[in-house]
Each structure stands twice: as structure tokens, then as C-alpha cells.
């Protein structure tokens, strides 16, 4: 087996040093009844690299890759161009095959990029501090709600109807354990009146912008209403590139920002791994979940970085920790950080503008089709269309013609008959004029 360096001779010598008769002697604490042989597993034997590659390539070939067709899916995961240097650099052994930086003297590479990542996230979101990542946007949102419950010692979390339904369900799964989650209802393309739901039991209001339909929300009045009742505003961002063009939540009074960072540096990967961004105000720092890298000096006075404030974390605090999280999204943070460093101020701004321009042109084009209307008046790179028939059926029909037309709202909200004919459509810098033309032609035919 190519990954196992020991030879049979080595194994014999090692057993002799140990003083064990055979390998079974080392497993003597295992109850006899629980030891099984090779035949207990109906699984194949060792395979060479070529054969494994053949099997997996055949599986992969059954899928329609986004890059191969006109492609318009968003709703929490976005297809962007990732510069070649990003994937090359994250595959350097020293980044790829290192562990959590618990020995800072020989992990400055990881610690410094985490410090840079935290800075970038704080700058993008307009917040004071950010952590070294959580699993993804949805789990970051759930952690934000728990943090708000801890800070305010209040049970209730009010979720905007524009929050991605998977995020809402993730929040409900953990925040209902010791609190109460209320979901507001919403009309696609409109902001609901969430302020009137806030009471003195409310820990937080959770609002996504751009929301799941693509609508850009004004968070300021919601922040004011929340703060007036002693509640916190949690802002959720699923398309982080949007912050290159629109006001960051930090400038609108958000207390915690939970976001998905996949759009920068990371591919679609069928839903994971992604990278959860988490930022807050300085005063809530010690209630934050997750790892933090901090600056310090070494014994010779040189600047260096360490994991810090770990008294919040499970390996020190055990059952009193702020969260049970241990693993983060290290390598995805690195991809994010390198991509954003390549973009810089100018590149990010251009990228964001390009996304908005592409999406605007596509929205104009599609909404001219008879029976099709645009329901989101303000959006970044994603908008929602109302179609004259079931969006799911139209998506299936266009898929047969090799056009991936977007996400039918019914896929996310199967119980809401009002969104049956709503289609969520995203365009990015990867969307070409030919893609848009193919989509427009296909859609005209499908709705006719």
C-alpha cells in the first residue's frame, strides 16, 4: 500500500522490541467478541491511483459543472472567478498539512494570515473585531443568535423573512433549546415591518442584506428600533462581494455581523467547505465564539502572533465555553485572504461594480419577456423574477437545454404557495453576454 512505509520486516522487529507475539496482542483490551476480520466488511481492496482516479472521474462526469453552461444560481453560494494564484498558494504543504497553530513559534505563517483575515473581515463589514472564522454563514448566524441571548439574557430572536431559510432552520435548531425563535413573514422584494415585533424579551433581530430574494435592505431604522428596546441587530450577508459596493452593516448600526465568505477565494463545492465570517463590536469581544489570533512579541522583542483569549474556548473552559466549536475553516480563510489581497481596494470595487452591472443588464433583459416581472427594486448581483408559471418546472425545463436558470424560491420555501412562481437569479463577473442571451431565449420559449 503506497501510503504505508512499514515493511513486514519492520513490523516484526517492532513487535520484538515491544515484546508482543503479534499485532493481536496489542489489541488485547478489546473484548474478543468485538474484533472482526477482513470478511466482516463488504468493501473492496486497495486500489492504485489510476484506478481511483478513473472511478471518481466517472462520477464527476455525470454532473453538469457550472462553468460548462450558462449558469445563474445564487441563494447563498455564488460562482466567482478565483485567480489561479489562490489555489496554488493554499496547496503549499506548509499551509495545507499543518494543524491548528497551538505552537506559535513554528506556526507564524498560519497565525499571521489569520490576523490579516480578521483585519480584512473587520474592514469589509465595518466592525471593530472579527474572529478567525466559523464553519459557514449559517452556523455563524446561529452562533450570533446564541451570543445575543448571552449578552442580553433575553430569550427571543426575531428572524427576518428575508433570511435564507436554511439559515433560519439552522438558527432554530440551536436557539430554540434555551430560547424562542420567531420568524417574520415577508413578501418577496419588500421589507417587512420587523420593528413592531421587537419587545422587551427580544435578544436580537436577524436581518439579511441583500436578502434571500436579492433585495438590499436599509438596516439603520431596524438597528435604531432594536437598540431602543435593548435588543441587538445581527446583520447577515451571504454575498460578501456586495460589501465592495454597498454600505457595510457596521455603518448602519449592526452589533454582530455573520456572513458567508465563500464568494471570495472559494469555489461552489456543492455546498462546502465554506467560511463563516463573524464580526462584532469591541465591547462584546469576550462573548465571541471561535478562535482569535492576536499580536504580541517574542522573547527577543520581535512582533509575532498567537491564539488569544482562549479562556472563552472549549479546550480551556469546557462546559462553560462560549461555544463548542474547535475546528474552523482555516484553509478557506487563507483562500479568502489571498484573493482579497490580490483584489485590493481597487480590484474589489471593480469586481463589485461588474457584478451589479451584469445583474442589472440581465434583469432588464429578462423582465422584458412577456409575463415576467422583476420583484426586487434594489439588488446587488441577485434578483427575483415573478414568472407566469411554476419556477421549479421552468428550471427543470431549461436544465434539459443545459441552462441552469437559478434557484426556484419553492426549493427553499416549499410551504409558501405565494412564491411558487418566483425565481431567484444571480449573475456575476463570470456571466457572459452569450449566457444572458441563451437564458433570455430559453426563458421566452419556456413561459410562452
Amino acid at each position, binding site marked *: 500500500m503506497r501510503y504505508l512505509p512499514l515493511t513486514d520486516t519492520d513490523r516484526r522487529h517492532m513487535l520484538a522490541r515491544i515484546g508482543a507475539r503479534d499485532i493481536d496482542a496489542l489489541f488485547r483490551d478489546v473484548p474478543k467478541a468485538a474484533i472482526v476480520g477482513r470478511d466482516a466488511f463488504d468493501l473492496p481492496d486497495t486500489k492504485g491511483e489510476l484506478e481511483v482516479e478513473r472511478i471518481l472521474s466517472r462520477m464527476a462526469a455525470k454532473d453538469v459543472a457550472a462553468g460548462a453552461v450558462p449558469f445563474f444560481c445564487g441563494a447563498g453560494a455564488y460562482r466567482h472567478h478565483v485567480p489561479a494564484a489562490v489555489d496554488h498558494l493554499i496547496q503549499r504543504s506548509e499551509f495545507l498539512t499543518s494543524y491548528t497553530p497551538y505552537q506559535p513559534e513554528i506556526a507564524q505563517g498560519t497565525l499571521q494570515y489569520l490576523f490579516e483575515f480578521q483585519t480584512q473581515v473587520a*474592514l469589509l463589514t465595518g466592525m471593530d473585531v472579527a474572529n478567525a472564522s466559523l464553519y459557514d454563514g449559517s452556523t455563524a448566524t446561529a452562533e450570533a443568535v446564541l451570543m445575543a441571548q448571552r449578552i442580553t439574557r433575553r430569550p427571543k430572536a426575531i428572524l427576518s423573512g428575508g433570511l435564507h431559510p436554511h439559515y433560519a432552520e439552522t438558527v432554530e435548531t440551536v436557539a430554540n433549546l434555551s430560547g424562542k425563535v420567531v420568524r417574520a413573514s415577508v413578501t418577496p422584494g419588500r421589507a417587512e415591518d420587523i420593528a413592531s415585533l421587537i419587545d422587551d424579551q427580544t435578544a436580537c433581530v436577524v436581518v439579511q442584506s441583500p436578502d434571500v430574494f436579492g433585495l438590499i435592505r436599509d438596516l439603520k431604522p431596524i438597528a435604531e428600533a432594536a437598540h431602543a428596546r435593548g435588543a441587538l441587530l445581527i446583520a447577515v450577508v451571504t454575498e460578501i462581494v456586495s460589501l465592495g459596493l454597498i454600505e457595510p452593516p457596521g455603518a448602519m448600526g449592526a452589533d454582530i455581523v455573520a456572513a458567508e465568505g465563500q464568494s471570495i477565494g472559494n469555489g461552489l463545492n456543492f455546498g462546502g467547505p465554506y467560511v463563516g465570517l463573524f464580526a462584532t463590536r469591541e465591547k462584546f469581544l469576550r462573548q465571541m465564539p471561535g478562535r482569535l489570533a492576536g499580536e504580541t512579541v517574542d522573547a527577543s522583542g520581535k512582533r509575532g502572533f498567537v491564539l488569544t483569549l482562549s479562556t472563552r474556548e472549549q479546550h480551556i473552559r469546557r462546559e462553560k465555553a462560549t461555544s*463548542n466549536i474547535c475546528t474552523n475553516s482555516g484553509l478557506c480563510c487563507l483562500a479568502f485572504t489571498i484573493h482579497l489581497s490580490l483584489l485590493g481596494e481597487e480590484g474589489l470595487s471593480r469586481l463589485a461594480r461588474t457584478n451589479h452591472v451584469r445583474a442589472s443588464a440581465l434583469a432588464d433583459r429578462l423582465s422584458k419577456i412577456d409575463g415576467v416581472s422583476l420583484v426586487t427594486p434594489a439588488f446587488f448581483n441577485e434578483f427575483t423574477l415573478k414568472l407566469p408559471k411554476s419556477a421549479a418546472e421552468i428550471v427543470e425545463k431549461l436544465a434539459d437545454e443545459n441552462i441552469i436558470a437559478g434557484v426556484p424560491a419553492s426549493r427553499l420555501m416549499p410551504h409558501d404557495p405565494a412564491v411558487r412562481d418566483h425565481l431567484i437569479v444571480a449573475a456575476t463577473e463570470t456571466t457572459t453576454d452569450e449566457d444572458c442571451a441563451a437564458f433570455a431565449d430559453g426563458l421566452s420559449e419556456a413561459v410562452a
Partner: protein
Amino acid sequence: MTMNNQGRPTQAGNIETAELATISGDRGLDHEEALIFELGRAGMTGVDIPDAPVSDSRLGGQRRKGEVGLPGLSEPEVVRHYVRLSRMNYAIDAGLYPLGSCTMKHNPRLNEKMARLPGFADVHPLQPESTVQGALALVSELMGWLTALTGMPAVAMSPKAGAHGELCGMLAIKAALDARGEKRTRVLVPESAHGTNPATAAFAGFTVDEIPAKGDGHVDADALRAKLGPDAAAIMLTNPNTCGLFERRIIEIADAVHEAGAYFYCDGANFNAIAGRVRPGDLGIDAMHINLHKTFSTPHGGGGPGAGPVVLSERLAPFAPLPLLVHDANGFRMIEDRAGLPDRLKPFGRMCAFHGQMGMFVRALSYMLSHGADGIRQASEDAVLSANYILASLKDVMSAPFEGPCMHEALFDDTFLEGTGVTTLDFAKAMIDEGYHPMTMYFPLVVHGAMLIEPTESESKESLDRFIRVLRMMALEAKRGETARFENAPRYAPRRRLDETAAARKPILRFKPKPLAQAAE
């Protein structure tokens, strides 16, 4: 005629050994590197994107007013910056990485290549199911391997890491108790457990009750039995445990737990010791997470991402979270919603958006297909053999608190350092100067000054012998009172010991430009 030696290859002459400060501050291949925010200049970018002027008409009055504050760098500058940073990291590819309970095994590059196939890497979680049948088939195939290797009937794939898997398992237990109409609040956790276990139990709304370990490193089964009662919801037990031992009385423990009406959660962090040889399902376990980034070699990536699928017993399977993967006449399909489910299925909720860590699934399946069931079994045997080899080769000079044999990690305490003035921390830091990443230190908490060594199956005998020789010499030196190399170690790393107290007292968690007056100094 003598040869002109100018510009010719250098020769080994008299080498000056004293340290000489360099002008640049760099030393040969060791480069100091500024923060990215201290580099670059306004207007520069490493990505060429044509400008696209936008109107504000569709931005809802929310156009960004200020700059973000990012530096501008060209591609070569960014590449050099991150390459230089990478060189300040230790890595498995560069050397033995004996971190106990972390399973730092070789990460095959085939797995990286497979995960980047466009059919896996460039598919969207919400594109039509008819266009992702290959990806769903891969998930199904991996589920088949995980259930076969563990002997468990079901597996939940969405948890994103070990601790997330623990949460998934504990929420399934909570849902099962609710379905029985019982309110049990207490979870028993051995004091030797990973910190995530008590943290998860508390996170899921249970109270934590600690079970002591016995003098032999095994959990005190009698104490455990005494603590079981009508309010006990579950135990969370790591097996093999964090002392590197297989819990001998595990079947008896499982029976007692079930008799008391509670559930048995097993922390599967140490599955690498027994995969292919012992099926957790045969031990009476109800739920166990599997760290794909440990046992199945998906890279640790400096701390993540991981993946933590949870295998479930018959009793817990109905409560597995959404989404559920099913196969019918039309192929594979995801059930993402409770509506329309048969009565027996009662998912407790959703762990995260979408369907889990696909990128990690591809790598793990690539590992499994490469090894096969025979190779997985051999890997576990080699991991256990290597750990025992280390234990047997060091126990006369270091101190092992428990009788062997151990499983895939060898535990030592600091008794052998008594009276030397050298601590576990000093010993670990001195290993850095010898070119090794230290072992896990001060964990588990049940022995004093713990040093937990997990070599994995990826080391050759020559590599193990060299490691053993170095550790023996170090231990002997310490005992002889030759403590110079332990004082203020490491000396030869990119940094000396860092001031963690200062970092925590006055946290600096992001770069902030110096005020102008100060910058001018």
C-alpha cells in the same frame, strides 16, 4: 597556472560559528515578512477587471460611502508575501507531527486532485438534482463506507467538524428522549474527555456530570454505573480514550447505559486506532462522529475545514437532521423538508445550510478507495504498532503512567522530569529546536504534565527510530541536569517564545495604521 576561483562553487573552509546579526534582519532562507497592510500602494491590484461604472438607481440608497481600507498589490507581491509566510509553518509534509488525538497522517495529493474535478468542485448546492447525480452518488458511496466500517445502520452527513458532529448526535438524543416523552437533563462525561464533549453537552442544553478515571487510565465503570439514573440522558465517552487506551469494559458500560434508559455517545476522534478491526456498532454505541480530517486524511489546513459525519444506531436514526439522501427510480434525491415524510422519520432540524462538506467527502472517499478495507485495517494496525514501539522505546527514560499496550497514541507524564527544573512545556519547546513539532501537551488532564504522542501509520521505521533517539537523548540530558537546551527553547524557530499573557491582557486583534505623528518617527 592557478585557476581563477572567483565566481566558482564555494568550498567548505573554516566556518565561523558565532552568530552575526545581518543587515537586513533576514537570515538566509529565513525572511521576516511585514503584514499585507504594511505593503502595497493605492490604486494597484493583482486582478485585472475592466472598470464598470454603475448608477445608483438600483442600490436602494445604500451605496458604500467610504473606502474599505485594503492595500493594493500586484500578483508577484502577493505570491511572495504568502510564500514567505508559508515558510514559517511546520507541516506533516516536512516532518513527523506527533500531536496526540489529532491524527496528523499523510495527506495524499490524489485526494486534492479529485476534489478539484469540476463535477465536484464547480457544482452548486441548489442546482437541479438531475444535474448533480454524480455528486449525490459520491455522497451515497461514502455513506456506504462509513456505515460498513462502523457497523451502524445510518449516518448524518451534514456536520461540518467533530464538535458539530457531537452536537448533531446530542440533538438526536434529545429528540429521541422528547419522542419518548422523557425529560432527562444530565450527561455523564469522563474527566479525561476532550473539551468539546462537555462544551457540546452544555450547548445542547444538558448539565454535565463528570466521571472520574481510575488509576489504570480507564473510566471508572462502577462510578459511572452509580451515576446512571432516571435523569441521565447519555454518556459521552471517547474510545479508544484520550489516555490512548481501549476501554476494556465498554460493552458492559453500554449495557448499563441502555438499561438505565440513556444513550451512548462515542467521540470517534480516535477511530484511526480501530478502523477495519472493530465496529463501534458491535460495542453498543448509539452515535459517533467521525473526523474525516483525522481518520480519513483530509488535510487539517492550519485548523480547518474539517467534516464530522455522525453514524447513528437504529434507535437514533429516525431523528437524523435534514437533508436526507434517498435513492429511487429517478435516481438520487435530497429531502430538504419535513413535509411528506413517513411518520417514523422525525428529523430534529438542520445543522447548516446545504448538505455538508462535499470537498472533504471527495477526499475521504478517495482515501478509502485507495486503501480499501484491507489497507484501512493495515493502517490502523501500523498506527497502533508505531505508538507501542514509541512507548516501548521510551518508557525506561520517560515515564508512562499506564501499563501498555496502548492504542494509536502513547501517553507520558512529567514524573521523569521531577527535580530537573524542566517542565513539559520546556521539553516540548526543545523538540522544536530538534526539528520536530511537539506532541500534545498537558492533555489529557488526568495525568500530570501530560505528553501525548501519536505517530500515525505514516512514519517509516527509520523516521520513528530517529525520533526515539532524539527524545531519549533529551530525556537523559534533562535527568543529568544538563538543562541548557530546555531553557528558553526554542532558539532556532522563526520566533522565540511568545508573550501570550500580554496578548490576552491587551488584545490586538487587527491591524490598525499607526497615527501619522508616530509613523513619522
